[in-house]
């Protein structure tokens, strides 16, 4: 008898063969390819064979639910949006400007002068006395080499972005003396043209001292004017007669205006959708309009409890941030009626100006009490580089949160925000008032002739007329 067992054992030892059977003289061998389980180098991750048979991994929904719940809780725990406060101004900060080419540079204008900041070091790089009195508006030229300021002293000044060398005096490249106070300024996206507003909307060529075009349409004071970043020849402005006026730089006349119940303070175009813009209104709301259909806004964004002073879109065009007189900042998804996030601190007063950084990561707010604050755009996001596995984990937990977002516990935790008592009380009061008004309207409708009191939707309520 041949010792079969010995032979096979030897084989196994030599060739890494697992079991061996003999059937009727022929030898059948089960063998594995070492490539399937042996690492090439020591640095490789161990290959773990997995069996995805669902019966081996039961309770998938409960397990994922638990994970989602934990992820939501952790998100709330890690939500620490406040990054830094830039202090140094000696008066309230009135306006800010982003640098189009550098993420770390930011400009701020206060009620007495203005400052250029370096954000990575969180320090002031340069201070200059630009105007006598308020700096009303500032904008950086698209190339990033110079910037324009307007102030209460009826001047437009152009400054170099570079710090003057030693011994050189700090003085503007250009000064234009206007007839009246300018309240806002914006620069064209690609050409040497800028626009100011005050008593009228003026379009200026950088090379000339008089405006190349002036628009006025029965209004004598404008608060804000903005170029459309996509269709670069379009403009929109907010006027004091509660209207928003649209212009085309190439046309001799304005295009259209919509008059609302209350005055709009500022507006911002969506940088990814050419025809949409959002305006911040005195009636505590923000309105997103499609410029082609001005007769009603397509979304009304509510949540603030006082006048909204400024608004800025995220560069992805998916969200925007608003600053309000109620001392809070809120972040709204562009098509949602309510905010997804609210930021506030004890010391922050009325927020006057707000900017979303052009890498979509940070938010800058300038407020009355002379400080500029740096916030994260996503409160719980981890900053800095992430390892691939970290990134995968973040993505997974995001997906889980999204999947289970309708479950009451998860929704409850993810939506919980702390608010200062005053704002909390005020929002409650507003809610009660609104409810009462609705109830009354309903009752009046019930007791009046059918059809005599048509239902007016929330969107239609706030627009008075559209003027051609």
């Amino acid at each position, binding site marked *: 008898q041949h010792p079969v067992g010995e032979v096979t054992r030897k084989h196994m030892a030599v060739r890494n063969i697992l079991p061996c059977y003999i059937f009727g003289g022929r030898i059948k061998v089960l063998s594995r390819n070492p490539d399937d389980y042996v690492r090439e180098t020591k640095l490789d991750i161990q290959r773990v064979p997995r069996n995805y048979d669902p019966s081996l*991994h039961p309770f998938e929904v409960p397990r994922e639910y638990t994970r989602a719940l934990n992820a939501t809780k952790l998100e709330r*725990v890690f939500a620490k949006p406040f990054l830094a406060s830039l202090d140094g101004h000696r008066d309230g900060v009135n306006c800010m400007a982003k640098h189009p080419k550098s993420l770390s540079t930011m400009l701020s204008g206060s009620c007495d002068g203005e400052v250029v900041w370096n954000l990575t070091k969180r320090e002031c790089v340069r201070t200059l006395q630009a105007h006598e009195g308020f700096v009303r508006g500032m904008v950086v030229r698209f190339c990033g080499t110079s910037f324009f300021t307007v102030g209460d002293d009826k001047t437009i000044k152009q400054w170099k972005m570079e710090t003057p060398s030693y011994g050189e005096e700090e003085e503007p490249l250009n000064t234009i*003396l206007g007839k009246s106070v300018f309240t806002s300024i914006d620069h064209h996206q690609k050409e040497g043209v800028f626009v100011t507003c005050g008593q009228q909307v003026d379009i200026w060529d950088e090379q000339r001292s008089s405006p190349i075009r002036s628009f006025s349409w029965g209004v004598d004071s404008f608060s804000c004017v903005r170029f459309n970043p996509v*269709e670069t020849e379009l403009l929109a402005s907010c006027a004091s007669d509660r209207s928003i006026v649209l212009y085309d730089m190439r046309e001799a006349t*304005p295009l259209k205006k919509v008059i609302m119940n209350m005055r709009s303070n500022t507006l911002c175009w969506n940088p990814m959708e050419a025809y949409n813009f959002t305006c911040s209104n005195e009636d505590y709301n923000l309105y997103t309009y499609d410029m082609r259909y001005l007769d009603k806004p397509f979304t009304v964004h509510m949540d603030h409890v006082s006048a909204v002073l400024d608004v800025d879109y995220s560069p*992805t065009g998916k969200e925007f941030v608003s600053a309000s007189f109620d001392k809070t900042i809120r972040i709204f998804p562009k098509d949602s009626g309510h905010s997804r996030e609210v930021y506030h601190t004890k010391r922050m007063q009325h927020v006057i100006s707000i900017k979303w950084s052009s890498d979509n990561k940070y938010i800058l707010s300038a407020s009355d009490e002379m400080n500029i604050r740096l916030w994260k755009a996503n409160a719980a996001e981890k900053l800095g580089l992430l390892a691939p596995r970290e990134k*995968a984990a973040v*993505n997974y937990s995001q997906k889980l949160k999204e999947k289970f*977002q309708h479950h009451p516990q998860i929704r409850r935790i993810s939506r919980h925000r702390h608010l200062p008592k005053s704002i909390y009380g005020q929002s409650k009061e507003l809610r009660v008032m609104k409810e009462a008004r609705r109830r009354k309207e309903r009752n009046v409708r019930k007791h009046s002739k059918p059809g005599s009191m048509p239902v007016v939707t929330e969107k239609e309520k706030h627009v008075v007329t559209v003027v051609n």
Partner: protein
Amino acid sequence: MDDEDDEELQRALADDIISASEDEGGSDDERKHCKLLEAISSLGGKKRKKLTERSEASIQVSEFTVNAEGEGDKIHLSDLIGTLDKTPSALIKTKKQLKNLQHNQSTLETPLTRKETEKIQREVAFEKTSKEVSRWQSVVLQNQKAEQLVFPLNQEPSGPKRIEQVVAGWKAQTPLEQEIFSLLRMNKQPLHDPVLTPTEEASLRAMSLEEAKIRRAELQKTRVLQSYYEAKAKRGKRIKSKKYHRIQKKVMRKEYLKQFDEMVKTDPAAALEELKKMELSRMKERMSLKHQNSGKWAKSKAIMAKYDDGARKAMQKQLEVNKDLTQKLVIPADEDEEDEEESAETLPDFVNDVEPILDQVNPWMRGKLSTEPMMEESNRLHPPVWPREVGKPGEGRDDQEEDEEQMEETEEESLLRGFEERRKLRQTEDVKVSDDEEAGLSNFTSLFHGLVNHMEPPADQPKAGPGLGQGESPALLEEGLVRVRTLEDVELLSQDISASDTALLTTRDLGTEETDTQSATQQADKKRKKMIDPNEVLTKEAKVIEMPLAPTAVEDVEDKEEQRVIIKEAFAGDDVISDFLKDKRKQEEAGRPKVIDLTLPGWGEWGGLGLQPSRSKRKRFRVKVAPPPPRQDQKLPNIIIAEKRDSSIAAHQVCQLPFPFENPIQFERTIRSPVGRTWNTQNTVQKITAPKVVTQLGAIIEPIAREDLIKDIRQAVTGPSINLESDQGPQKKRRSQQKKKKAS
């Protein structure tokens, strides 16, 4: 030196005077004063550095103080003509025109007021701009729908760059290099940035890889189609059956007419040509004796027609054909009618269907409609299928007509199919069927099936629930005075459910069960259907149990009484109470504990087919479960209380169908499919969990540029994109999708 200074001072003073006269407001006095002081101080010998300051050009005072002399005077036409007369070279034509003008007495219309003209201008400008802006619509929509957007949008392709791109301004210096370059130059090889030769460039420009692929795919497709049609034509030619050809001809004619109709709309000139041809063929038809029932066949049929229905029909058909062929075409009048017919035909099937719920208010319409009192119990349990033609009578008739038409069609089709099948049989005997033909056949059969299916009503159409309440928007924040700092806080937050929440939960008890299982939802549905006030429709006294059956509220109003009587009559056969009792008994039955049988055949005794385990064994392994606590509705005869609901779980369950979902099943399906790595492969997980918006750390995101739009439009013009990604890996596919998004 002194002289210069003096001059400067004087100039400054003069400036001051002029400017003072200029602006009367005098708001700039201070500034002027400063300027003056500066001018004086600069007299001390230091050169003053002049600030460049621009001010607005004044309008009132002319820079050169030049005035036109006869400013107020009007210029008359005669003055101009006078000068014309003096110059001999003036054109005669203009002279004439001017003279005519002078004689012409009629005045021009007054121009529109400035306000009105501006308004018109504004309207026109707005139209123009909004049209221009609307070009972005498709891009915006696409970005909204995109599964993933990567910002910044126009990223340069990563990866190694050519050395020529990296090192700019490099020159050959060493003699060897120079020699090489001179050689290259002689052979017209590229030296600097364009690494490709001119010919290569041209070929690249001629066609990109993608375009080439698309073109190749198109060519392949056309080739296949061509060979298919050739084969088909050959096959058709070989068929000897006259009937087949006749039918074929008929089909062709129909098709031709359809094409002609389209042509009338799109290309009227060509249609006119066609019309002439048709007219010619009509004349020929009139001249010929075809279809006149005068041929041999027709005569034979005429004899048979007395006895044979089919023969009569055939003759009539032929006469009809004749009529059709010899009829004069009047297109414009027909067109509208045809359109109407078409629209009537293309109305979707569900228009004729009866709405599943006729009346929301009437509870009876929610349940079953069993008019026959003798209906069996088993039948009653299922809601009856609505008959299809219960709509308006007119509609029903239309339907019938349509059906008849369809029938005719199918007759033809079935005939054709018969031919096809026979042919196929023959071929399978002889030769193996080529791929093309098979494809054609399958095409045909699918077409046929499509026709057949078209006749049947669609099984179920997903209805978009218009009344689907959006509920509270998910973004709504719950703002409170509690600040969450630690995990424990969050824990607490989740545990204390506010009073309002619990109230909500209790009201939504029914709904909470929806998430349990599919069967549970069905049960719930049934229950909802059964929710009918028994007091309203008491027809038969329940015999089994005595309970207070008297209506709780007696209504005085006559009308309501009448209505109740009517309802009673209408649903005389319904026995709601016994249904309810049955339901309750069923629930009780389901709640009762069941005996668990753990006997395993074959252990300790023989097992196999037809062998039962012994009784003693069965007795031993049967486990009896302790009875549950008595039901809550045990003593409440007309109430069913669901015992299934667990309050500890209910806090975690969804009680309302969330917004984008249309039915609970859909929602459950999304919840049930796991996304984690435990259940899915690496690639799948990556794909599923990919974030919607990806941004790069430290990259500036520019606003979307107009070039993107132009690119998108160009792509749309070049032709439809053909799916070429099937052979690429998942990674590549994603990237190409992104590209598409970007381009759009």
